[in-house]
């Protein structure tokens, strides 16, 4: 393989990795129902179960990086609590080591099967009910395929003459070996593959066992670097998993490296020396060293357990969108009294309405009114929160309630449906108006619709939170039917100079969306609207 081919393959690997990661994230969000969460949480209910799951994940994926990112997606989709996910991650490390030496699965072939079967199944209409699950599997397939290509792209390095020369040079310094291990792990993306290369180099007599062991220890820091580099787009809890993986691997690697350095001064015997007393082969010697390093990860995880939260929160503060996506009032016990449950749902719905103005930021005329959150992140968080509320209400309907309670639940479900549609409508207005050219008449009118939507949403939120009669009066006026008003704007846009045909079309669409937003806000508020004629 030429260098050009290797670089291209490396880029392809990265693309598939990120495509897979995005696919897994999106699909898991679709799967994130309350019942699915209960099942997922049951799988990690005890530390032992979490450890077993971690070892299995590590063994099957053969990649600590892949496990870290899969768990990031599970935590982002709120399918797993962060505390348990951290235990799973720490135990995934020994999982990767076990399979690397005991039963090497042909991951490449398995990945191809996953991609092929799930990809074709997704085209099958009869399998539509499980499309989200298939999407998640396809994402995992892409992610693993990407990692495989990254490893393949590193093949020419192993075969290059300079690599042997560098390997010989590593004999001169243990520290150099440690650094080389870290860098190699970033490039090759597989610690077990590095161990195989090292065994070959030791077999040829190019590298000493202790130097090879130091390279293995260096891979621990490399795992951390890889996870942090590939996790650049992550925030909040998802990023904490990456940092956790990096910290555990770096700690275990550094402890073993320090031991080896002390041993070099004859203060104590090194691990390879201890193992050589038992007459183990070079292969086994390095394999044990690597496995020990991986086993230290959950040990360090356990030792740092009490300070995990503090450390990770400092490194990766909670992202505002994570906080928004997490229900503040709905928990399992909240469903016992339907009246209280409905009140809690109302509070949660007010949170959704309160966050909606952020979606308008990109299209505001008033740049000073813009927040710092990205609209796309907020929309994803709101979808997640809306799923939570809908799931909570679905569970509530399963409970036995009296007639009045049933009517209340039905009305709340209808309001929730309107709220879900309101998120789409508000996002639609902002997206459409943001397309209009600055300084144009169409933009000014579209911006006016955006600012008016902002006022409406602010009043709706206050009404949902406080039920102040004054807000009710304002809301009744604001949510009156706007058919005639918007029709007048549409007629005006057809006769005046409102820019290109595309700008006019966007403005027309924005007026329709505005009408819909007003209608949906009325449904969410439950306030009887004043008639449009009374506003004229």
């Amino acid at each position, binding site marked *: 393989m030429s260098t050009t081919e290797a670089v291209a393959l490396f880029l392809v690997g990265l693309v598939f990795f990120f495509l897979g990661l995005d696919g897994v994230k999106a699909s898991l969000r679709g799967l994130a129902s309350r019942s699915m969460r209960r099942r997922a949480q049951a799988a990690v209910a005890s530390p032992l179960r979490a450890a077993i799951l971690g070892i299995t994940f590590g063994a099957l994926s053969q990649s600590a990086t892949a496990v870290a990112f899969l768990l990031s997606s599970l935590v982002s989709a709120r399918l797993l609590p962060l505390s348990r996910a951290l235990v799973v991650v720490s135990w995934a490390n020994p999982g990767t080591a076990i399979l690397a030496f005991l039963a090497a699965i042909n991951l490449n072939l398995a990945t191809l099967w996953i991609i092929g079967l799930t990809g074709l199944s997704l085209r099958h209409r009869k399998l539509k009910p499980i499309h989200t699950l298939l999407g998640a599997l396809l994402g995992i397939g892409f992610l693993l395929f990407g990692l495989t290509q990254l490893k393949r792209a590193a093949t020419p390095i192993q075969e290059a003459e300079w690599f042997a020369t560098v390997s010989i040079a590593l004999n001169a310094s243990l520290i150099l070996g440690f650094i080389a291990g870290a860098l190699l792990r970033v490039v090759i993306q597989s610690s077990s593959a590095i161990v195989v290369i090292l065994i070959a180099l030791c077999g040829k007599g190019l590298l000493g066992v202790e130097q090879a062991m130091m390279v293995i220890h260096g891979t621990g820091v490399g795992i951390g670097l890889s996870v942090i580099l590939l996790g650049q787009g992550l925030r909040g809890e998802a990023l904490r998993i990456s940092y956790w993986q990096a910290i555990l691997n770096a700690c275990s690697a550094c402890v073993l490296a320090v031991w080896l350095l002390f041993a070099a001064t004859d203060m104590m015997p090194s691990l390879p020396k201890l193992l050589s007393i038992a007459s183990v082969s070079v292969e086994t010697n390095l394999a044990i060293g690597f496995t020990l390093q991986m086993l230290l990860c959950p040990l360090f995880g356990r030792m740092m357990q009490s300070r995990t939260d503090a450390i990770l929160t400092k490194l990766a503060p909670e992202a505002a969108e994570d906080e928004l996506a997490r229900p503040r009032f709905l928990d399992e016990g909240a469903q016992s009294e339907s009246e209280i449950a409905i009140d809690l749902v109302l509070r949660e719905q007010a949170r959704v309405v309160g966050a909606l*103005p952020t979606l308008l930021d990109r299209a*505001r*005329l*008033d*740049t*000073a*009114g813009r927040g710092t959150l990205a609209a796309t992140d907020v929309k994803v968080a709101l979808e997640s929160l809306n799923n939570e509320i809908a799931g909570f209400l679905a569970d509530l309907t399963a409970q036995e309630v009296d007639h009045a309670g049933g009517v209340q639940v039905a009305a709340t479900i209808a309001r929730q449906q309107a709220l879900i549609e309101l998120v789409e409508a508000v996002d639609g207005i902002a997206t459409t108006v943001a397309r209009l050219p*600055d*300084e144009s008449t169409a*933009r*000014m*009118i579209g*911006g*006016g*619709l955006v*600012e*008016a939507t*902002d*006022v*409406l949403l*602010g*009043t709706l939120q206050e009404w949902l939170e406080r039920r102040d009669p*004054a807000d009710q*009066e*304002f809301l009744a*006026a*604001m*949510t*009156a039917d*706007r058919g005639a*008003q918007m029709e007048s704007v549409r007629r005006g846009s057809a006769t005046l100079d409102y820019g290109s045909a595309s700008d006019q079309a966007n403005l027309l669409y924005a007026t329709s969306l*505005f009408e819909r937003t*007003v209608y949906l806000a009325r449904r969410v508020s439950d306030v009887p609207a*004043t008639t449009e004629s*009374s*506003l004229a």
Partner: protein
Amino acid sequence: MQSTRPVGLSLCTSTSGPPCVVALSGTLDAHSQVEAERFFQSLVATGATRVVLDCSQLDFISSAGIRAFILLIKLVRPIGGAVSICAAKPHVRQMLEFTGLQTLLALSDSVEQGCAALAQERSPN
């Protein structure tokens, strides 16, 4: 678009009333919302209940500005007062109309019309 707008808001009471006429000029946006709200609060604290807002020199209003107007209405209505918004430039008026609050904000074409409209309102309790 923002760059073409004059920055800042100027508020002054041109007639102490009743009705009290307040002239607004410049930009009423998220930056100047707090300033406007404080002004309205102090105005109502001094006893003003019927307020005519002369917007003839107001170049831009955003949702934040409209919220300041809503606050003023919420302050005066419980004490029998009312607010009239007068002489707004076409784009400012259109923005106010988009909110659907034209009846509550009592839009008028001139300060005189606004004062006349408020004079017809019943006296404060």
